[in-house]
């Protein structure tokens, strides 16, 4: 069990991250404004030194702080730009292209925040007009490559409803030009294009060869055979969907990928008494963007585990005073650490000894000496798996949202935080209207699809810091920290409208589903019963004709 104080520390850390995240949009707006001033200031050799200096300071601050609050990608990018400005400050005159790139890069910062930040609708106060604008800026860009106009417009509509910015291309050539012009965050590509000799995967594979960074792509196709999948894999696919399309499932894949690209660095603990060698591993892994701690005395393992929360532990088999597999078993005695992956990293070449070690607590064996490249890939894969598993444990299997127990807990935590900070948290209970008849009419598979669609929409439209849980069958709970009741109503009404516009298709029939919602905020006496009160408001919304949001009076 995690001790109370540890839980508190993590909570405090989370709270600080939130506060910082709340301030980030302001910082980015300031940077963008400075960038625009720079663009306006005319010839590159006439850049005002004061302007460069303020830009440098803002970038320097951002580079230094964002990463400490978990925004690592943002930190790294700010640093690149900081170094650029530094050169100009030192007297080098930038070319016009360099200046243009610079301003574009600054503009792009806000996009880096899109999945790791609260830059989305519930961030904004009651006025719905700036709401749309701010949400727009943070949206991921998706290219849909599809020659079937009908399918294309269906996809575009669905993805737009989920909050993505979508561009559609009907031919491969047009799409290729667009990708080179502006790199999308994601591509959805059909395999066959009528009138084109090339297939989607062939075109993408070529683009991948030319591009430094791999493009994230999913393919859609009528084919369901090995060769079709193989061609997709060779073109770097992260998903493959057979028609007729399960769009919520596709969005799921898309979101998971975008999140992975924005994730915080993996945390790796190396337990090895060969200090020199483990230092070397540390450097290699840190260089690959991970966070690494070293322990040379196995007696320190427990302390470091409690403090550092690693996702993967690399254990040497031969340690002073005990064996590596004993340390693995020791770690496994703590139920909280069951989700941590353990791998042995040792020069033990005896297969029997290796097999024995793997039987006790650890999962597998990496043999020393190991090349840097292989070390990085082996560690990455295992840490990613560990993170995936850990997230799966707290999450509802159908929707990926928090489970009933976790979301109830979360409500308590947020109410306490609201009391502490003097801010207001709003809690909403959402229920799908006439869901039983959806199940009865179209079958459970389609019912599940509706539920997943709502889950996706909630995730896409709410802030990273908002809590979203599946409370029961078709019932959801949403927690909006630092959000007053009337702002919450605006957000929820917006969600309600978006959801009712999502089209579901059942064998030739298209239908829509609506939702009802009850919402309450914590600035009232009985703030330890928010869920109950929200439930009553939900009941009223149902009684008054459904498809509406009711606030508790």
């Amino acid at each position, binding site marked *: 069990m995690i001790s109370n104080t540890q839980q508190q520390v993590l909570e*405090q*850390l989370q709270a600080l991250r939130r506060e910082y995240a709340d301030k980030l949009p302001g910082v980015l707006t300031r940077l963008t404004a400075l960038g625009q001033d720079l663009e306006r200031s005319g010839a590159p050799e006439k850049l005002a030194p004061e302007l460069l200096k303020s830009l440098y*300071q803002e970038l320097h*601050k951002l580079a230094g702080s*964002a990463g*400490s*609050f978990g925004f690592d990608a943002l930190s790294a990018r700010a640093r690149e730009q*900081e170094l650029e400005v530094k050169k100009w400050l030192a007297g080098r005159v930038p070319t016009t292209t360099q200046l243009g790139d610079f301003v574009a890069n600054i503009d792009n910062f806000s996009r880096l925040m899109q999945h790791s930040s609260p830059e989305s609708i519930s961030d904004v106060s009651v006025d719905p007009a700036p709401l749309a604008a701010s949400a727009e800026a943070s949206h991921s860009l998706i290219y849909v490559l599809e020659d079937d106009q009908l399918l294309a417009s269906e996809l575009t509509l669905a993805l737009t409803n989920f909050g993505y910015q979508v561009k559609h291309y009907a031919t491969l050539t047009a799409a290729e030009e667009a990708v080179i012009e502006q790199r999308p965050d994601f591509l959805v590509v059909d395999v066959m294009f009528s009138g084109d000799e090339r297939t989607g995967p062939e075109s993408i594979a070529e683009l991948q060869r030319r591009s430094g960074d791999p493009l994230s792509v999913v393919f859609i196709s009528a084919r369901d055979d090995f060769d079709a999948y193989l061609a997709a894999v060779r073109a770097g696919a992260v998903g493959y969907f057979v028609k007729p399309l399960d769009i919520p499932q596709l969005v799921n894949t898309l979101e998971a990928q975008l999140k992975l690209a924005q994730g915080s660095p993996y945390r790796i603990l190396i337990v090895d008494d060969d200090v020199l060698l483990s230092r070397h591993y540390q450097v290699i892994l840190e260089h690959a963007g991970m966070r690494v701690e070293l322990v040379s005395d196995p007696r320190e393992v427990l302390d470091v585990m409690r*403090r550092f929360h690693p996702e993967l532990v690399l254990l040497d088999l031969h340690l002073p005073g005990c064996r590596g597999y004993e340390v693995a078993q020791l770690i496994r005695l703590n139920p909280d650490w069951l989700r941590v992956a353990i791998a042995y990293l040792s020069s033990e070449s005896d297969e029997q000894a290796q097999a024995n070690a793997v039987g006790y607590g650890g999962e597998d064996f990496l043999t020393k000496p190991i090349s840097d490249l292989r070390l990085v890939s082996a560690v990455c894969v295992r840490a990613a798996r560990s993170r995936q598993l850990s997230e799966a444990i707290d999450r509802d299997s159908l929707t990926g949202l928090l489970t009933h127990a976790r979301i109830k807990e979360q409500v308590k935590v947020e109410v306490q935080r609201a009391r502490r900070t003097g801010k207001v948290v709003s809690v909403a209970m959402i229920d799908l209207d006439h869901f039983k008849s959806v199940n009865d009419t179209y079958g459970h598979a389609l019912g599940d699809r509706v539920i997943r669609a709502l889950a996706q929409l909630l995730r896409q439209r709410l802030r990273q810091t908002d809590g979203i849980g599946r409370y029961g069958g078709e019932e959801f709970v949403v927690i909006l920290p630092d959000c007053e009741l009337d702002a919450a109503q605006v957000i929820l009404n917006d969600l309600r409208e978006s959801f009712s516009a999502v089209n579901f298709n059942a064998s030739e029939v298209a239908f829509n589903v609506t939702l009802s919602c009850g919402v309450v905020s914590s600035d009232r006496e009985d703030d330890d019963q928010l869920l109950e009160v929200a439930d009553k408001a939900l009941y009223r919304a149902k009684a008054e004709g459904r498809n509406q949001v009711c606030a508790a009076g």
Partner: protein
Amino acid sequence: MTAKRPLNTILYVEDEPDIRAIAELALQTIGGFSLTSCASGKEALAVAKTQVPDLIVLDVMMPEMDGPETLRRLREIPMMADVPAIFMTAKVQPNEIAEYHALGALDVIPKPFDPLSLAQRINDIWHRA
């Protein structure tokens, strides 16, 4: 490893409130150190007249009085002359590290830092010194 007295009190100087808050959490709550944090070099100079910490941790880039300047002025206070110092900065290039060492810093911690392991990192530097 030489036996050394444990690190207890830290004087921390950082102008950015966000970073100060997260470092306070990292050093006070997680690390268990007794921390005096200051928002400017000026504040640090005032504090140093009344209490002598085990260690000074300073941000390099601060308005008005930067980290190196603050350290130099702190060192002019007789009781503070030998208190070890660590710099924190977002730009760490080898030649700069040498520069900070020349100013008498034990080490340089690059920003951004990991709040969960900052205390350990500082402890390690303390014991290595």
